[in-house]
């Protein structure tokens, strides 16, 4: 296992004690969008990954895991990329499960859900996910969850919803742009990772998290 994968696993284990809440959120999301299978995938992926890509930061802040990251034989860069790897793993898991569910729901509701549609919703989901995480992660890495928290999730959400609204994006209209969505997402993530590395260096320089509470 590479160091990046180890960090992704560490993130998984960090949130693992709270997995039942995760499943609940997922189930609620499914229920919410059950009636619109085409919207289900991007919406679910977006909201779910938005919450859970950042969840390790939430736990880390409370548990003082910053020290753990500094003490473990784990290169700093691998640690940072590991956050991205974790987010991508989340995407893959969420996208696969929700696509399968969407197809089944569509079949049950006799709504058309072609292979083309699947490709489109996946590309859309990727783009939404990537932009969201690309904004969130450098902020979380630089400032930690407590200082970012609501803003960290609300900002990308606002950006994305605003963009969707402005561009009048709907599933049919985005069919032409699929490869662009994949590439744009990948580029956003890579740029984000580069920014995160710089942001992290500034964080190292500062005195660190809040002092001890007795």
């Amino acid at each position, binding site marked *: *296992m590479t160091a990046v994968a*180890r960090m992704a*696993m*560490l993130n998984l*284990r*960090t949130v*693992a*004690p*709270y997995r039942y809440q995760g499943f609940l959120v997922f189930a609620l999301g499914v229920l919410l969008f059950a009636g619109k299978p085409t919207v289900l995938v991007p919406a679910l992926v977006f909201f779910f990954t938005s919450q859970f890509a950042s969840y390790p930061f939430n*736990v880390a*802040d*409370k*548990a*003082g*895991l*910053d*020290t*753990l990251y*500094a*003490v*473990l*034989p*784990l*290169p700093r860069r691998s640690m940072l990329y590991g956050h991205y790897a974790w987010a991508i793993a989340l995407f893959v898991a969420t996208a696969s499960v929700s696509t399968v569910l969407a197809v089944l729901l569509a079949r049950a509701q006799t709504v058309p859900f072609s292979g083309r549609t699947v490709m489109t919703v996946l590309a859309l989901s990727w783009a939404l996910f990537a932009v969201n995480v690309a904004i969130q992660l450098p902020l979380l890495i630089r400032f930690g969850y407590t200082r970012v928290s609501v803003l960290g999730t609300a900002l990308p959400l606002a950006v994305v919803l605003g963009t969707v609204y402005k561009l009048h994006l709907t599933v049919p209209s985005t069919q032409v742009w699929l490869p662009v969505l994949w590439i744009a997402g990948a580029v956003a993530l890579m740029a984000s990772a580069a920014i995160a590395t710089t942001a992290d260096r500034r964080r*190292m*320089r500062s*005195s*660190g*998290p*809040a*002092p*001890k*509470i*007795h």
Partner: protein
Amino acid sequence: MTGLQLSSAPEIRKDPPVSTDLAFALRGVGSAVSDNFALRDVSFELPTGYVMGLIGANGAGKTTTIRCLLGIRPIDTGEIELLGHLVPGPVALRQEIGVVLDHAFLVSDWRLTEVERTLRPFYDRWDGARYRQLLDEFGLDLRAKVKDLSRGMSVKLMIAVALSHRARLLVFDEPTSGLDPVTRDELAGIIGDFLLDEGHSVLFSTHITSDLDRIGDYLTLMHNGRVVQTGTKDEVLDAYRVVRGGPDDLRECVGVQLIGIRRTSTAAQALVRTSEADLLGGNVLVEIPTLEDIAIHVGARDPQRNPDRDAGAGRRQPDSPMPTGRNA
């Protein structure tokens, strides 16, 4: 006798190669923390196989120094050598170092079995059997969650983790604050066991001097971001004398610095450097200090010695003992 040889685990010293027989050395280290606090000209070293006590009041700079030593905090001047490597050394160096604070820096909802499963992939030499054996020795239940542990048990857990990945340098940052004397004594025993191997070393920072009274080999005294004294425990104790006299006996004498003078209506007490002790008059009682005497007087809040203490508001404090979660 050959039986004893086997238990000293020579394979630890084979990798990575150690160029000196110092566990660590700080030379002229400086690191700015805020406008009002910085580490300045911090120099001390520890030969392999011994325990060094890092003593100082809260805010003296102990945690900041430890963070610099571990490479967590960048330094502005000077150099640091850690287990034969210049800091920041290779990441693999962390395989050999165990860090113990007064709390476990782990997810509170992890069970102790999960702790092992999570940390194991990062270490080349994780000894699972040892981990379980240590938990048993320390009276820790494998099925317990990290949040269920008392402070003392958390400290022992982190020691168990460090020993399980075969660390040869243990760094303790104020592990005993808030611990009862029984646990503090157990800690001294654990350190004694750890030092049976002469390739093992310990850095122990504390403001509780009784922790190190007996087991400390070397001491470094810090105050206001500087090293006040360093050397073997005997050397440090011998560098000072406690002087006691009546309220008027200890007036400023030429050439004698009265450290942390405490004056009441009936008596006065201060610390002086041994070399200056003879310059005092015959009216005073001069004695060899205890470690506590030294810590108290050196760390005393003396407005004459700390002019910037009273200057301005909103200063950033020196690092508090390592970052902690709210469930500490």
